[in-house]
């Protein structure tokens, strides 16, 4: 399930919801990404995420289907926020559930690598000095996503 929202979310509540659904789940893996206080060495005060409404949901749903086709998942949740966020706030959540831990781990790592390189979001950082900078694509993210290609 894919949710794109402005509001803050609670990773623990999502994990509990996923785990509480059935007793054939052996493993739940979660990844939560937070607004960090610096990026590439500059101190960050807040972060604004712009996105492409419509395309975002479409791409996230495709990514979820791809993960479900590659691994045996009992459940899969993706929550991604947009708008302005303060330091320490969560930005993105991926939760995967499976009978076995490898499926849950690999699917979550895969989803994050693809979100970083395929989901139409753009980060605008505001520094302590009031500068606003668009975050640059990272080669390490592209490399991470490439390793999942067949």
């Amino acid at each position, binding site marked *: 399930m894919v949710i794109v929202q402005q509001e803050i979310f609670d990773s623990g509540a999502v994990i509990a919801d996923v785990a509480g659904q059935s007793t054939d789940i052996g493993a739940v893996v979660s990844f939560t990404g937070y607004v960090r206080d610096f990026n590439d060495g500059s101190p960050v005060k807040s972060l604004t995420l712009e996105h*492409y409404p*419509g395309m975002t949901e*479409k791409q996230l749903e495709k990514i979820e289907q791809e993960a479900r086709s590659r691994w045996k998942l009992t459940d899969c949740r993706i929550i991604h926020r947009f708008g302005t966020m303060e330091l320490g706030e969560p930005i993105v959540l991926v939760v995967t559930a499976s009978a076995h831990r490898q499926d849950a781990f690999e699917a979550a790592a895969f989803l994050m690598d693809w979100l*970083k390189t395929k989901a139409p979001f753009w980060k*605008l950082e505001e520094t302590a000095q009031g500068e606003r900078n668009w975050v640059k694509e990272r080669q390490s*993210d592209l490399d991470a996503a490439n390793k999942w290609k067949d």
Partner: protein
Amino acid sequence: MKILYFAWLRAQIGMAEDTVDLPKEVTTVDQLLEFLISRGEPYSSALADRNVIRVALDQEYVKGDAALKDAKEVAFFPPVTGG
């Protein structure tokens, strides 16, 4: 045709959405980019570096040689940085 711009492309061009009447010789994404650049500033600067422009046709990623055909919406944007 509806054209959308995002992130610093939107900021540089100064609008999020535009509608253009395509000349009939403009049939691919790359031709559309050339056509926009030919209109001068702010397009010529904002769209100058083809390497940092990603394209979606009707909300699906496409390459520069993709045919515009009956697409309703084309979007230009920088490499994504979500997650």
